[in-house]
């Protein structure tokens, strides 16, 4: 299931989502997708973008370095947050002042 190039209104990135998408592409060295192509409501892990657990650690580090928050897997909100670009961005916004 590949939604590349098929943007709908709901899948347009906000400014902060775009910034986060750029962070994802850069910190994970994703070579075959550009930040603008990450659909905000596609899964990041498993299907969709297809990130794995090594990526989770790398990305968590990049998020810590940029937004100064520490992710926790035990946090129920965190489990949902990592689902899509949109939910991850919302989690970051909620947890930074």
């Amino acid at each position: 299931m590949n939604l590349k190039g098929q943007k709908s209104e709901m899948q347009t990135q906000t400014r902060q989502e775009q910034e986060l998408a750029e962070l994802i592409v850069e910190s994970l060295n994703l070579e075959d997708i550009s930040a603008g192509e990450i659909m905000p409501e596609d899964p990041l892990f498993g299907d969709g973008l297809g990130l794995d657990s090594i990526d989770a650690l790398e990305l968590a580090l990049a998020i810590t370095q940029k937004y100064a928050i520490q992710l926790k897997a035990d946090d129920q909100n965190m489990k949902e947050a990592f689902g899509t670009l949109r939910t991850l961005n919302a989690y970051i916004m909620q947890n930074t002042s």
Partner: protein
Amino acid sequence: MNNQRHSPIIDRNPDEIIAFRAGLEVDAAKFISQANALAGRLPKHRYVFNLYSDRYEFLLGFCAAVIAGQCTLMPPNRLDKTLDELASEYPDSYTLGGAGNEDGLNLLQPHDSSHVTDAHDSPLPVIPADQLCAIAFTSGSTGKPSANLKYWHTLKQGTLGNIDLLLKRFNTRLNVVATVPPQHMWGLETSILLPLFANVAISDRTPFYPQDIVDAIESVPAPRALVSSPVHLNALEKSGVPLRGVDVIFSATAPMSMELAQALENRFDTCVLEVFGCTESGILAARHTSEETLWHLSELFELEPGEAGTVVKAGHLSENVIIGDRIEKKGEYRFKWLGRHQDMINIAGKRGSLTDLNQQLLSINGVTDGVIFSPQHTPERLAALVVAPNLKPSDIIDAMKPMVDPVFLPRPVYLVPMLPRQETGKLANAAVMSLLDEISGSGKRKEQS
């Protein structure tokens, strides 16, 4: 070579703490009564898949199976394809635990010791030395997982050797937090077998992010050990979390650099002991990586360098094993590691065979040629060059997903018109690398038809 025909499932005094479960201490007596109760409830089959993700539940399930005379199957990964293949090869089996579509049974009841009035009355099960307790599967270049048989005496003697190799400096109970799953040998030997035979208590947690690790460490008393792997430890070191109070970090599954070991020791005021072993033999050796390059071999083993790898001999192994590593002996019980056999790769601590992965790539419908390999400059990911006129890179990834562990999925996949094969059909490393450089150098996204 063992003198005991039977030995107890656990070698601890009844009042000794063996685990922390949901923040509460569990002593050996309570553990025995819970394991006995669970053993009585297990369906009657020869083999069991233990998919409990909670470490204490895995421990209970593992020991209950041993008590009931059942053998735990340990698959090399959690892919449906792998589990289905093993289940059809071992039809007299069932699944404990697991989530989602794995259809596992959860036979545990919370804080279960309801069947006995006093935990101390529960009989201590003894296990025959030659009982087959586990089969640990490794994926190899044949495509089919190979079976490594673990008998009770192998697990016990191996653990006694590990205690000697790793825990001599601790004379009070060591409290262990592990980031690694109990379903593979590294996690099994450290977080499941150690509390049975050593003065060790394990946390039921499996922390993932650096902050989770800090929380888990704080949840157990000193002295504390962290059992982990370089991928996690690297993230931990760089995260800046205030980890304190870890007396020793044990690292295995992939090589650790001296730089990372030093950085961990400096930042967290701790000692890092790197451990070398494999599924076939169990833990073999250890070293203090921040200051030495030679390994200390466990005195249970004898190593003989050979053509195909190294022969490992030990009294407690049911047969000699050959490991795909090259070593050079440097004195009694000291050796230098020279590298792995070319076919074997290690990505984030998972072992794979390039031959196997290439066969799977070529088996995809629409792929007429291709190569998957480990580019020198990014050892943490595989890359692929593929000839597939009617496919997109994402089609190839999607086709590989059900066949291989996620860490082996190539990133990136580049489509090329043809591969630089020689007349013999062989692909020279240098030719592949320079093609990769050419393609990735000329633009971020290059799709060719």
